[in-house]
C-alpha cells in the first residue's frame, strides 16, 4: 500500500501536466470549434469551403503527426515558421485538432434546429446574430451535450500522446517508474487517475443534461 502511495506522489506532477493540457485545450477548442461551425454554415462559399478543408485536414491526419509537425517542421517553414517549445506545441496541436471535431458536432447541432425557429425569430424583427445567440445556440447546446461529453472524455486520454515530445505527462511518468522499479503496478495508479478524471466529467455532463432537461 505504501508503495502505491509513493507512486501516487511521484506521478502527481505528470497528472497535473495532463490536466493542464486537457483544460487549456477545452477552453481554446470549444470557442474555436463554434467559430468554425458558424463559418462552415456561412453564406460565403469561400469561407465555408476553406473551413471544410481545414476540418478535413485536422480530422484526416493523425494527431501525433500534427503534434510532430508543429514541433519539428513548423520552425523550418519560411515566413510563418515559428519555433515553439514542447508545451506550446502540444496545446496548439490539441486545440486545432479538437476544434475540428467540435466544429462538426456544433454544425450538426445547429442544423438540427427546426427552420421554424429562425422564422419565428425573424418575424419578431431579430437579426441573424441575435437569432443565433439567443435562440439557436442555446438550443444547440442541449442537443450536443452527449457528443461533446464523448469528445471530452476522449481528450482526457488523448493527452498521453504528448509523450512523443518527451513531455512527462501522466502515462509517461508511470512508465518511467515501471522501468525503474521493474513492476507494472504504477500503471494501475495511472489508470486510477484517468478513471477519476473521466468519472468527474461524466458527473459534470450528467448534471448539465439534467439542467437542460427543464424544457422538452
Amino acid at each position: 500500500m505504501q508503495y502505491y502511495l509513493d507512486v501516487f506522489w511521484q506521478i502527481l506532477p505528470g497528472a497535473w501536466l495532463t490536466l493542464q493540457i486537457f483544460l487549456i485545450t477545452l477552453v481554446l477548442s470549444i470557442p474555436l470549434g463554434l467559430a468554425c461551425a458558424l463559418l462552415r454554415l456561412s453564406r460565403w462559399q469561400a469561407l465555408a469551403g476553406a473551413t471544410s478543408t481545414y476540418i478535413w485536414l485536422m480530422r484526416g491526419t493523425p494527431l501525433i503527426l500534427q503534434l510532430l509537425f508543429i514541433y519539428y517542421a513548423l520552425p523550418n517553414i519560411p515566413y510563418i515558421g515559428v519555433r515553439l517549445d514542447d508545451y506550446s506545441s502540444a496545446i496548439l496541436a490539441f486545440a486545432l485538432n479538437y476544434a475540428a471535431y467540435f466544429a462538426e458536432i456544433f454544425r450538426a447541432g445547429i442544423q438540427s434546429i427546426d427552420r421554424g425557429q429562425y422564422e419565428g425569430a425573424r418575424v419578431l424583427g431579430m437579426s441573424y446574430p441575435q437569432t443565433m445567440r439567443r435562440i439557436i445556440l442555446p438550443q444547440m447546446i442541449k442537443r450536443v451535450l452527449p457528443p461533446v461529453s464523448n469528445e471530452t472524455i476522449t481528450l482526457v486520454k488523448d493527452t498521453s500522446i504528448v509523450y512523443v515530445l518527451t513531455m512527462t505527462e501522466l502515462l509517461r511518468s508511470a512508465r518511467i517508474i515501471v522501468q525503474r522499479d521493474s513492476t507494472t503496478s504504477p500503471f494501475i495508479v495511472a489508470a486510477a487517475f484517468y478513471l477519476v478524471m473521466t468519472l468527474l466529467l461524466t458527473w459534470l455532463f450528467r448534471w448539465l443534461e439534467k439542467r437542460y432537461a427543464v424544457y422538452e
Partner: protein
Amino acid sequence: MRSMSEQAMHGLPQNIIEASDIQKSFKELQVLKGVSLTVTRGEVVAIIGPSGSGKSTFLRCLNRLETITRGQIVIEGEMLASTDAAGHCHYPSEKTCRQICARMGMVFQQFNLFPHRTVLGNLIEAPLTVSKMPRAAAIERARQLLAKVGLSDKADNYPSQLSGGQKQRVAIARALAMAPDIILFDEPTSALDPELTGEVLLTMRELAAEHLTMLVVTHEMSFAREVASRVIFMDQGEIVEQGPPEALFGAPQQPRTRAFLSNYLKALN
C-alpha cells in the same frame, strides 16, 4: 407613390399592405401568378382556397420569409420589394427589410415558440433584444397580454407543457408584444385538434373586435364568414374572387369558388 401622398395627408398611412402583381416561382413551378392585394387599417381579410393554391406562400412573401420573383410590395408607404423595367426584383438592405417587416406580426401553423424559454420569456424576447425595452416594462406588458389571451397562470411554464391551443394563444400574445400594425396568420388552427381550435378562434375574434388589422389564411370557413370583413378565394396561384363574406359565401360568382365552397355549404344546410 400614391401611398406616399396619402401618408402626407392623413399622417398614418391607411394602406398597411399594398401588394401588386406578386409573382413567385420555385425553379420551374410558378406558385403565384400575379396576385394583387391591398389591406387597409382595421380590416380583417381572410384568404381561403384549396391546399396548394399559393395562399400561404403569398402570406410569406409579404414579410419576406420568401422573396418574390416579380411584383411590388409596399408596407405602410415603404417599399419592401419592387421590380424594375428589365423585370429584376429588388429589395432594400437586410436591415431596412427587417425594420419594414417589424410592423407586421406573424402567427404560424406550427407556433414556432422558443422551447428553451418560458411563456413569459417568449413574450419578452423580442421587446428586449429588438426594441431594447427595459426589462420591467417588457414583463409588465407581457403579463397584460397573457391576461388578454387568458394564460396568466402559464407565465412560468415551458411551451412543451402547454396544449396546442394554449401554444397558439401564446404565439398570438408574442406577436402582439411587438405592437404590430397588422398580424399575418398562416393557418393558425390547422395543426390543432378540432376541440382546441375554438379557443384560438375566440382569441382572434376578440382581436378583430378591437379593430386589429389581420390577414388570415385559413381553412375555417365559419371564421372567415363571421369575422372577416373581406374574403379572398385563391386557386392555382391567383385570386379568383373576393368580396364581403355575405357575397362570397352567399352568391359566389365564379364556378371555381362555387365548386370549392359547395362542400362547405352542403355541410351547413
